[in-house]
């Protein structure tokens, strides 16, 4: 990393980001996010049982094993299983809900039902009238509170950036703004392009994490830049200060992002399917700020610094002394 000079390759980074973000916007408009994790359009086999008869873990496990046997013998892949134990109060029943995302023909549905009924009839513990009830259901989710974009992340990040501008200067705030915006959009774009299954309300959360992390990682750069400014006796030119700050910051950035990625991976590896579906896409919200703060940030900041330096040079008024009166 010590020989790597990302600030010299700004067009490449801009091109990569532009391609990803534009493609992401187009796909989001055309297809939206892949909310498969929410099971927006699903088929389910409901196996409802009378909790007063199927009243032990043993019987419930037996019922579950019958279902699994029949589904397996019909080569059906279950995308999710939801169990409700029920209390028996007010006739509340227990249920096993098997969810399927692929289409299953009406014949196969009927076959599965018949085979399961046959198995249950042959079992003395489970063959009573209304002990177990089987039904196939379809479900299409209509609510979508996720798309209520209130600019919340933007407001939060701008508040942080105003403070950043006051404490670290306009250049740092402008670069921070660009990076936060970039990372939020980049994260959403990758989710849209890769069609990663997410919960309906999750994209906003991922964008928020990306923007906040981007702000945190950019702060590491800002701190190094300020320290450098304080320590150097003569003002450094834009490229030297960006390079020196980068050499001091990249390790910390890698440590922070790496630890976070490890935590997310661990959560994804160990958690239940539901949590995993929420946790693993978070990796994108960690990788996007890592990319931007390691390569895009220094390159953008160099241009911002140069522009600001040029602006301040042009606006510097020179004292030329009092205008002399022409001798008459």
């Amino acid at each position, binding site marked *: 990393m010590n020989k790597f000079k990302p600030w010299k390759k700004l067009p490449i980074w801009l091109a990569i980001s532009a391609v990803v973000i534009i493609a992401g916007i187009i796909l989001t408009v055309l297809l939206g996010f892949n909310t498969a994790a929410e099971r927006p359009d699903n088929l389910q086999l409901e196996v*409802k049982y009378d909790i007063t008869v199927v009243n032990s873990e043993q019987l419930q496990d037996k019922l579950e094993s019958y279902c699994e046997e029949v589904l397996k013998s019909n080569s059906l892949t279950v995308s999710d299983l*939801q*169990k*409700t*134990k*029920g*209390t028996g109060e007010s006739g*509340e029943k227990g249920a096993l809900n098997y969810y399927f995302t692929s289409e299953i023909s009406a014949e196969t549905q009927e076959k599965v039902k018949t085979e399961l009924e046959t198995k249950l009839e042959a079992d003395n513990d489970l063959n009573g*009238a*209304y002990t177990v*009830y089987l*039904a*196939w*259901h*379809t*479900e*299409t*989710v*209509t*609510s979508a*509170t996720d798309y*209520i974009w209130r*600019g*919340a*992340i933007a*407001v*939060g990040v*701008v*508040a*942080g950036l105003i*403070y*950043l501008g006051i*404490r670290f200067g306009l250049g740092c705030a402008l670069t921070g703004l660009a990076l936060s915006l970039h990372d939020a959009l980049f994260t959403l774009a990758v989710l849209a392009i890769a069609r990663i299954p997410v919960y309906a*309300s999750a994209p*906003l*959360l991922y964008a*928020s*994490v990306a*923007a*906040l992390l981007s702000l*945190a990682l950019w702060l590491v750069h*800002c*701190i190094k830049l300020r*320290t450098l400014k304080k320590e150097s006796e003569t003002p450094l030119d834009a490229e030297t200060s960006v390079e020196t700050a980068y050499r001091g910051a990249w390790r*910390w950035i890698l440590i*922070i992002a790496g*630890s*976070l990625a490890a*935590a997310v991976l*661990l*959560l994804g590896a*160990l*958690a*239940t*399917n*539901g*949590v995993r579906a*929420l*946790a693993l896409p*978070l990796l994108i919200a960690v990788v996007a700020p890592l990319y931007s703060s390691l390569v895009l940030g220094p390159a953008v900041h160099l241009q911002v610094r140069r522009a600001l330096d040029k602006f301040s040079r042009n606006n510097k008024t020179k004292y030329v002394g009092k205008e002399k009166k022409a001798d008459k």
Partner: protein
Amino acid sequence: MSKVKSAICLTLMTLLIAGLCFICFVSFNLPNGIETYNSILTMTEKDADLGLRYGGKEDKSDRYLGGGYSAVYYPEGVISAEEFELEFNSHDMYDNTYDPDLQDILRYEKVGNLYFDSDKIKSANSSGAYEPNDDFKAQFQKAVDLFTARYEALHLEDVRVSVFDGYAVRVFVPQSDTAALEPLSYTGEFTVKYGSDASSAATIMPARATESISDYVKSAGSRTGADGTNYVVINFTQKGREALAKASDGAADSSATVFFRVGDNSALELSVSEKIDQDSLYISNGQFTEISAKTSAVLIDTAVNGVQTTLSFDVENTVNYHALYGENSLLWMYIVYAILFAAMMIFFFVRYHLLGFAHLYTYLLFLCGTVLCVWAIPFLTLSVETFAAFMLTSLLLCVSNAVTFEKARAEYATGKTMTSSVKTGYSKCFWNLFDVHIVLALAGFFTFFVALPPLSGFAFVFGLTAVFSGLGTLVLNRFNWAILMAYTDKKGPFCNFKREETEDE
């Protein structure tokens, strides 16, 4: 700091942390075998996604324990296959006596997984299959739009509305918000009646068949007062205000009730003992929770301004889900956290030896403070979102503490005393760490003020724990360091700090 002062501080700090850890994390059965001592973490509200299996209490108390309820709204004249079969099989087919219930059930025809009353279906197609008539389809679509709008207007996390088996509506609400399930199924025209009882009360809005309720009522909303009282606010037009004022003119002499009704169901009732003459009516029955007030307001508002349908619905098939993400979600989250905690402590003890205790004490106070806040602040729940925010700021605290230790290490290496190293190290990074925490806390809190759930919960916890992390690293960690250092004469090895080696010339 002297050794005596240090010993007192360390003992008090240890007792404080032990006490906090006990009340936050330890649950056990009391000796009587009936009651249980619940930790703060156990009593913390769990998100519907995580449920109650671990860390919750499987009882029927009114506390929110995670998970939620789903129910199916069946249109009138539409029943589930299960209900049909149950009804059908309860009759004796070989009994020739006339059975009106059997005749009723025989009117139903199968449409997909549901059974429809014959007046709601078209005649069978060539393959013998039935489908609902066009009017039913159009009205059902309106009902779906209405229910979706209502549940979205609640702005609750995890709420879900779906079309079930083609022509029924399934809704899911978190366990804390089940008050919404029944009222939000009401459909029909919104009317306001005034009288001594519901059956004899006169309709005052709309007073004539040619008028609509929007001539009288503008909108409805809910508010929470500074004292915590929840209100439903109904905003009237001038005509509505006059109609209510006229009706309640004699209320001082004989008290009556204003009945706010949606279709045939009561949305709200208000006892009146004096004339009401105002543009906005604040109604509080003293029992409104935030969600029940919001539900009534959304019901009235959508009945006035929303899509209308002629269908009415029955709420059935209510099912309790313990955890949407799977029954062991919470357990696995705890396990992941335990592994990360262990990894963090191994790093600190290996790199900084006994100075790791300073970080441990700081971190435990940070952890207990967060758990107490999530438990005590009403709108927060333990969810994957709040967990993610907590993990982010945990990392912030760890990095900040590591930065202060590294700065002091660098100073110590140059030959300074430990006290001087700590002082100089802290002074070098104090404002940098201060800035990082302030920026992140500001970003978190500002996001919270504008966001909707679930982002708002994430943002608030992020902002709050960023403040805790700042206090922890800049104040507590230094204090812990000072009291621990008083115990040892070999301060360098205690912290695993080494002097720079210089070559003799």
